[in-house]
């Protein structure tokens, strides 16, 4: 099923911009849409133009994507107008439908009927819209978000919550990682997360997928779709509502003990989807997936540091996460002995010490990367801004491709070297370890 007209529209119609008050949400949507995608027209009963964009009373041409942000009572007419003109897809951002109760649900079902009988796909209602990188510096912002990142990359994200979409964009701005597609599915009257996942699985521009999930209505289909994707592209899920009490008064012990989250967890496990425990773990695992930390699972890791205490915290986290900290090979240790101070601890964590001669950081770290017993590296540097520490990590990654996660504090030179090599830095030693473990 193609969602091309949703993610790669060449022409857009916007319903719901005000001709007299450009502070309305519909006007934000119109200016967002006009700011990137090609051909944009506003649909308005009597204006000839809105905020400098031409307007028509009824849609008079085929378009790829209709963005609908009119008051709930006028949504049905707008959907019918877009469907009659032959729109490929419509996103209803307006609220006041299935989420409000049975009466809203009836109207919502009518929207689906209108769309399906015209062969038009429907997103929403009650959603935040779509964001998509169209190639080069061209972006589609068919959303209410007025600030979206403009760094292109391989990560795509699907959300059942509009507000979590805002948290996602804030995280993307902070991480600097690149975005491919974003979709807020809202009430999922027609297109749900499984449909979006299926399309993203085949999207050449998408290399990793994050999802915020409140419920999965088509569990078995989700599993069937996801398991065809996860061998090629990591899929990371944050499920909200894990603790919701099992409402069923089960006669069996197992049914009630397993809880309401057990079924989704079972499905995600079979599908090879990574499930994150909370927001922090989700963004860490998603970032790790986006930079390809999962391509080579690492169970045997080395913690390379000049900072004692934080590296012990990292070692604790590694044990909790089921990662092993093997001893380095004899040849590696002999090589390190010639490079680092005699008092350096060459177990694992490997503490090169701040007294390590600056010229020796690069060969020492390269030697650790080259050790056959080590599959992944956690690099920790608190406040010793000696650039070669970062260079050693960068060269190790370049030479071996071993998955690497870092915790760097107050060492901008080191951090810049790592960033240049695509090494992710995390907010604590434990989170660096957990991100690496999410791929193991």
């Amino acid at each position: 099923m193609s969602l091309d007209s949703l993610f790669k529209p060449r022409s857009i119609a916007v319903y719901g911009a005000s001709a007299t008050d450009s502070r309305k949400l519909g006007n934000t949507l119109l200016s967002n849409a006009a700011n990137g995608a090609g051909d944009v027209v506003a649909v308005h009963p009597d204006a000839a133009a809105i905020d400098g964009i031409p307007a028509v009373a009824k849609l008079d041409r085929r378009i790829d994507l209709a963005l609908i942000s009119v008051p709930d009572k006028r949504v049905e007419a707008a959907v019918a107008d877009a469907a009659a003109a032959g729109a490929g897809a419509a996103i209803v951002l307006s609220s006041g439908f299935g989420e409000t109760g049975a009466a809203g649900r009836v109207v919502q079902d009518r929207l689906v009927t209108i769309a399906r009988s015209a062969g038009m796909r429907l997103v929403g209602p009650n959603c935040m819209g779509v964001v998509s990188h169209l190639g080069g510096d061209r972006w589609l912002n068919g959303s209410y978000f007025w600030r979206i990142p403009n760094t292109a990359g391989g990560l795509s994200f699907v959300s059942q919550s509009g507000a979590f979409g805002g948290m996602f964009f804030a995280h993307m701005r902070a991480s600097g990682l690149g975005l491919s597609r974003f979709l807020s599915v809202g009430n999922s009257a027609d297109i749900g997360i499984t449909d979006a996942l299926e399309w993203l699985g085949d999207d050449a521009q998408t290399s990793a997928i994050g999802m915020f999930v409140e419920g999965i209505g088509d569990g078995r289909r989700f599993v069937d779709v996801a398991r065809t994707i996860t061998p090629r592209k990591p899929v990371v899920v944050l499920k909200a509502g894990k603790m919701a009490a099992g409402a069923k008064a089960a006669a069996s012990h197992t049914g009630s003990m397993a809880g309401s989250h057990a079924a989704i967890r079972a499905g995600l496990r079979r599908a090879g989807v990574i499930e994150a425990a909370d927001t922090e773990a989700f963004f860490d695992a998603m970032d790790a997936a986006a930079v390809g930390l999962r391509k080579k699972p690492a169970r045997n890791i080395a913690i390379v540091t000049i900072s004692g205490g934080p590296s012990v915290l990292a070692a604790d986290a590694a044990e909790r996460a089921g990662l092993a900290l093997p001893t380095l090979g004899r040849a590696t240790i002999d090589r390190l002995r010639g490079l680092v101070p005699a008092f350096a601890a060459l177990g694992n964590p490997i503490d090169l010490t701040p007294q390590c001669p600056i010229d020796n950081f690069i060969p020492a770290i390269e030697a650790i990367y080259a050790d056959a017993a080590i599959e992944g590296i956690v690099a920790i540097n608190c406040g010793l801004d000696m650039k070669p520490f970062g260079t050693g990590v960068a060269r190790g990654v370049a030479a071996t491709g071993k998955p690497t996660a870092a915790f760097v504090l107050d060492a901008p030179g080191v951090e810049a070297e790592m960033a240049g090599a695509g090494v992710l830095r995390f907010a604590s030693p434990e989170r660096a370890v957990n991100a690496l473990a999410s791929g193991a």
Partner: protein
Amino acid sequence: MKTLSEWESKRRLADLPYPREALTGSREEAERFVSALGKPVVAKASGVAHKTEGGLVRFGVTASTVGPIWDQLAAAGDGKVLLAEQVAAELELIVGGYRDPSFGPLVTIGIGGIAAEIFGDVVALLAPPEPGEVANAVAQLSGRKLLQGIRGGPPVDIDALARVVDTVARLLVEDPSVAEVDCNPVMVCQGAPMVVDALVVLADHASA
């Protein structure tokens, strides 16, 4: 919802490993069974759920004591008494199954015993399980080390446990009228799982 008796439930799950047992209709029949077995048995009332909580399970019953116990349990239940070989277990597990409206039939594996509800150490998997999924699920349990052998004892035979899980899964997958299954406890004796009690719950109306 209709809960089948233990005896009926076990007939629906005929492929599971059970202790030697008999559903007895009279004192005389009970005495003959215990004498022939030559060792103590567990006596359980029939046609009643949550028998342990109701004091309707008696251990260490012999040929000479079975008579009066039989009368009490028969009166408390449906007039019959289930007698079973008493097994010595190093570990208790729970295996079950139920249906999720979105994900369909699921099977569960959990650590059993008197604190089972307190620890809630249960993992679910989609039914029927695929090869390797039972072993992976067991590795998700907090108490997974209990299954690796207690105090030098043998580890749980995971293949045999997988066969128990498969049998429960097959009933749920093949019979849409089955809403829930509960094998509790599954006693592990010298590594081998043995289903001591089983419960099958039927839905009021057959549903997927």
